[in-house]
């Protein structure tokens, strides 16, 4: 009877999701959230939704308490919740609701809001993903998995066969041999596989703010692509004048101070693709984030060559995100757009001026459904 609460709960969650969608920009730039990423859930603080009623706005209303202390002593801490109607309503987010969403739901909201098209994967479905389901039956197992009905049936069958079953006194006594247990079956499905290769310029001109932007943007790109592919791999490359592969944590935290040779990253990326990801079997997404400063025109030409001749044919799409920085000239963006043109389907360029620009940039990258 009382179980229709789930309907109201689902309705509430829909309203909340609507709120998140409305304020997506705020949440997209909310980098704390990314830190809260669990296995496949994120917890998002959403301001309490409430039904407005007439109430007093004056804090001076005070109240009654009990305990030791003399006049003038503070009552608990300032941030402690106070009784009565004395709380001011002008501080939004005083009681935030923590809403848990799966990454899948989050991606859905992102996709809806940015009107992202579904990605059409290329390549064969050759990744075998296994799921284990308890749909099987075994004659041995732990008693917590005992299948009562099947065990009973076995016992009944045995008793009828051996003539010990008496319909007028239908007592069925199972013996050990009759016991049946639930057991798993492995389900194999073929999936498309994808890899994202993040490259970031960590030369001296990329400051903390720039890295924060890259980090946030990478989180959302990850979230979206994960919703599109069942299995996804990520690789991280950082570069200044030389490039090296690192783990995720190092990727965001490293700060070097050398010069910048972008070609070094592209070379390494190309090598990784060649070694581990055959283009016929993988959907490959190289993302490069930089402030747009390259050491020399010579190196830029080399970059174009690597891209055009080697990387582009292998990748679904190559994405270059230029993060605005105080020191960067932004030349590389112009070089790329001169070389490949702004409307190239295989090379997507995007400028991220500040945190606010992240959402648009994500749309640039993912809006083509590649």
């Amino acid at each position, binding site marked *: *009877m*009382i*179980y*229709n*609460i789930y*309907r*109201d*709960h*689902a*309705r*509430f*969650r829909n*309203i909340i999701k609507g709120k998140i969608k409305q304020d997506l920009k705020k949440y997209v730039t909310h980098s704390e959230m990314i830190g809260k990423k669990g296995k496949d859930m994120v917890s998002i603080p959403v301001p309490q*939704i409430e*039904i*407005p*009623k*007439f*109430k*007093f*706005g*004056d*804090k*001076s*209303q*005070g*109240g*009654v*308490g*009990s*305990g*030791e*202390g*003399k*006049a*003038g*002593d*503070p*009552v*608990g*801490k*300032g941030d*402690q919740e*106070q*009784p*009565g*109607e*004395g709380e*001011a*309503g*002008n501080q939004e987010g005083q009681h935030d*609701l*923590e809403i848990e969403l799966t990454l899948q739901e989050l991606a859905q909201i992102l996709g809806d809001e940015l009107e992202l098209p579904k990605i059409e994967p290329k390549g064969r479905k050759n990744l075998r993903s296994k799921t284990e389901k308890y749909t099987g039956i075994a004659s041995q197992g732990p008693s917590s998995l005992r299948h009562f009905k099947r065990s009973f049936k076995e016992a009944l069958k045995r008793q009828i066969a051996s003539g010990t079953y008496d319909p007028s006194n239908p007592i069925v006594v199972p013996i050990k041999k009759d016991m049946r247990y639930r057991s798993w079956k492995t389900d194999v499905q073929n999936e498309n596989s994808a890899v994202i290769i993040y490259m970031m310029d960590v030369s001296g001109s990329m400051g903390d703010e720039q890295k924060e932007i890259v980090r946030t943007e990478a989180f959302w790109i990850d979230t979206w692509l994960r919703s599109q592919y069942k299995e996804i791999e990520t690789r991280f490359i950082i570069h200044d004048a030389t490039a090296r592969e690192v783990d995720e944590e190092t990727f965001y935290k490293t700060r070097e101070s050398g010069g910048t040779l972008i070609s070094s990253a592209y070379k390494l990326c190309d090598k990784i693709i060649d070694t581990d990801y055959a283009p016929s079997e993988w959907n490959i997404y190289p993302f490069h984030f930089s402030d747009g400063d390259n050491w020399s025109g010579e190196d830029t030409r080399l970059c174009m060559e690597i891209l055009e001749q080697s990387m582009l044919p292998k990748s679904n799409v190559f994405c270059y995100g230029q993060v605005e920085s105080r020191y960067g000239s932004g030349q590389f963006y112009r070089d790329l757009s001169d070389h490949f043109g702004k409307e190239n389907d295989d090379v997507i360029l995007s400028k991220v001026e500040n945190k606010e620009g992240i959402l648009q940039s994500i749309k640039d990258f993912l809006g083509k459904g590649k």
Partner: protein
Amino acid sequence: MSQKELTPELSQAHQDVKKVAEGFGLDFFETIFELVDSNQINSLAAFGGFPVRYPHWRFGMEYDQLSKGYTWGLQKIYEMVINTDPSYAYLVSSNALVDQKMVMAHVYGHVDFFKNNIWFSKTDRKMLDTMANNAVRIRAYMDRYGQEVVESFIDRCLSIENLIDAFLPFQEAKKMGDKQEQAPSIEVGKIKTDRPYMDRYLNPPEFMEEQKKKMADEGKKSKRNPGEPEKDVLLFLLKNAKLEDWELDVLGIVRDEAYYYVPQMQTKIMNEGWASYWHSTIMTTKILKDSEILDYACNHAGTMQMSPGQINPYKIGLELFRDIEDRWNRGAFGKEFEECDDMVKKAKWDTKLGKGREKIFEVRRVCNDITFIDEYFTQEFCDRLKLYTYEFNKRTNQYEIVDRDFRKVREKLLAMLTNFGQPFIFVKDANFENRGELLLWHKHQGFDLDLKYAKEVLSNMSAIWKRPVSIETEVEGQKKIWTIQGHEFIERGATAAPT
């Protein structure tokens, strides 16, 4: 999925507790205990205790918070009981037996209170059915007009659900005004008779028509609607707002349900105090086994805990009932006692009157929280519970203890209880500025409105009234009128206010 029957062990405990409660003279409705799991109790609590409510997201939000609080171990609901006849109470299956017994004893205290306290005398004791019927009707509207449409209308109604008159059920003349109040206005021209069968002859239809017309004309002439500021804003809207039939019905449902919960808000301290008094009395004198004492004491202490800056209605209520019982047992009241200046003598005062029990039964019948505190809150009680008033100090930006004088504490408590600590709002004029706009009036009693919230509420009301809605209030000592017009919240000069 339904609730489970009590286990034999619990049934036995139930019978024992019931017998003891009856032995103490508690007088309750038949009480049905149901065994539910923690998830079910959270759902029930989200629905305000009722198994069937109309669909609305706020129940889902409530549930979300309760179940998270439970999962994270922050809170746990022990008991819940609904004021109906018979009463339904829920036991959480994961609780230990001693807890269940305590809950049962506590519940019998509540049910006795529901049945005998005068402020509950007008409540709908078939609310379980009423709520379920309301749910059916609202579902039908949702099927017909769409969930979004109906739900957002409910949101608006809920935004003003507290604008009702807690004392209306006790005013015979105005009672259930919407139906009966209109009737007399039509019947004014009637020739009165105490023989109903004569009515048709004394007041033929033609005559009635004529009289009605006369009334209507006169009605037009009368200057203001309402004549007096109306506290039951919902009732006023039901009678005057231009709403669809289904909207009127929904508004009526929200109003009825709001009225149902009024006595529980009026007697929070007493009700919990009374129930705690009885669980404590029943458990410690008759029910507890030696082995259970520690668990019981631990649990009881947890319920009675006071945190700084907050008062616990269970604790205040229980202590005040005990205090009254003690005083009436000793005869420590009345002129002679009051006028005694010797504190030692007062403390030892004992006339062997022995009327404590009798007195608290009387108090539970006639009082509500306000009269309870006003009558029985004494200096000694205030000192013993170490109560103080606190206020917000703007200079230090924190709440600070202000006073321990029992008169000040009592005054503050009463102020917090008056109108449930909410502003007094009335409808003042339905034809404000002669433009069919609605004017509300905030009866200012020292505290300003939160204007941000007021704006939202007015905007909801204006969607119901379908014309701009204004409120007359005071902001920092200045008379102000604020109006919601479309999406704008405009301040007007108070001079425009009709006096």
